[in-house]
């Protein structure tokens, strides 16, 4: 027998039940960090997406810039932000998380708006809609499937990335991962991993539900596609 400390069983149920309070509060923190990031990301991306769609000159620099952000690793981005927004602050975590939602949300908003059929545009004009009315009543609703598809990808990605913010003192479930690694103890890591994957799955399922709720015409017309 080698004299190496065991990392314990993959799941030690007694630890889980004794730590259930902590686990729950970390899960809640994880959900909060994700929700704020995706919410703020959407609030920034919708106007940016509308602007990029209206002014094609903006499109290339905007997609280029958000694409550049995508290539920067999350730990590196947070580390670069830290001197500006505080080493262990929520702001640093959120700025990084929001940055990563921008590419997919802006791109899908533009794609959704660009796919609005010309007929719909002409019908709206014929009905006497102003540009603003047309945007809110015709174009944005028709772009919604694409925006929601982007929202799903952004949410699932953010759930995973929140774990990494544990390095700057945030992290939700990521804190369990750091704890498990620090203590050579499997259970916290497995709990963090499993809950993180489950959370991504549940969030995705909820957004699919939202898709069905706000796009009833799709459900009826597309036959469940």
């Amino acid at each position, binding site marked *: 027998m080698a004299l190496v400390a065991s990392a314990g069983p993959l799941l030690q149920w007694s630890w889980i039940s004794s730590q259930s309070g902590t686990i729950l509060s970390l899960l809640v923190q994880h959900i909060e960090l994700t929700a704020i990031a995706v919410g703020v990301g959407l609030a920034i991306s919708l106007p940016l997406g509308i602007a990029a769609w209206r002014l094609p000159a903006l499109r290339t620099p905007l997609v280029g810039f958000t694409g550049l952000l995508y290539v920067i*690793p999350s730990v590196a981005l947070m580390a670069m932000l830290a001197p500006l927004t505080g080493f262990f602050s929520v702001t640093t975590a959120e700025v990084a998380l929001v940055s990563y939602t921008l590419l997919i949300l802006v791109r899908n908003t533009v794609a959704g708006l660009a796919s609005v059929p010309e007929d719909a545009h002409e019908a709206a004009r014929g009905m006497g809609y102003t540009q603003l009315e047309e945007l809110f009543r015709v174009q944005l609703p028709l772009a919604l499937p694409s925006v929601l598809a982007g929202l799903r990808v952004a949410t699932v990605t953010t759930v995973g990335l929140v774990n990494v913010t544990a390095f700057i003192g945030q992290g939700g479930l*990521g804190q369990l991962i750091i704890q498990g690694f620090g203590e050579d103890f*499997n259970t916290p890591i497995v709990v963090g991993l499993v809950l993180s*994957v489950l959370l991504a799955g549940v969030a995705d399922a909820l957004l699919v539900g939202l898709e069905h709720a706000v796009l009833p015409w799709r459900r009826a017309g597309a036959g469940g596609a």
Partner: protein
Amino acid sequence: MNFLSQVATFFSTGSNWTGSNGIVALCLEQAKLSAVAVLAAVIAGVTAGSVLGHSGKGSFAVVNAANAARAIPSFALLTLVAIQPAIVRLQEGGFITAAFTMFALAVPPILTNAYAGVRDIDPAVRSAALAMGMTPGQLLRRVELPLALPLVMAGIRTAAVEVVATATLAAYVGVSDLGTYIFTGLDTRNNVETFSGALLVAALALMVDLVLAAAARGLTPVGLRGPSWSWRHGTAMALATLRPR
């Protein structure tokens, strides 16, 4: 400007570049780790993906599993592997852990892209190749893979950028790569070191992306290049499957 001038001093100090903890050594370690993981993933992913795309058997399950695997946080997998006694015993445990995790991270995008690339080939092209007397192996090697190459390369590019980015985390399990600057800097609240490390990682990731974009262009059969397959189009394809890490 004071902060940026400190960063400039970090990069212009010769002793920061040399030695076992110098920029060059750490950069090479990150590149070595990434190369090992991506090469292994290319072999496994392209083989499995093209065979699945060719035969179509069991592909639904495998492709779905590959997509689901992408929801696993790489950071969790990395630490979990790192603390297993069998790994802790090894001298190069950190490197092996990181290489394995990066491999697991790189296979799904390569596999799904290779699968999609081979599957979506015009059936008429297949029939023509078979009618010319090609064996299934020849069909795969000489017709299907070359035609699938743009998508295969996009998958490899996605995987490589993700791996280079995630390799930063390897410093957390004891590999001395560019992540070392970031983690040491965060621990000691040394803004300059952290920021410089982050700059280096971002530069390396961008470089890998650009080099692979050029390679993809060079390797694509001339007939497929045309005006419709531009560098920008390649970027868009790669980003479509890329996830931040």
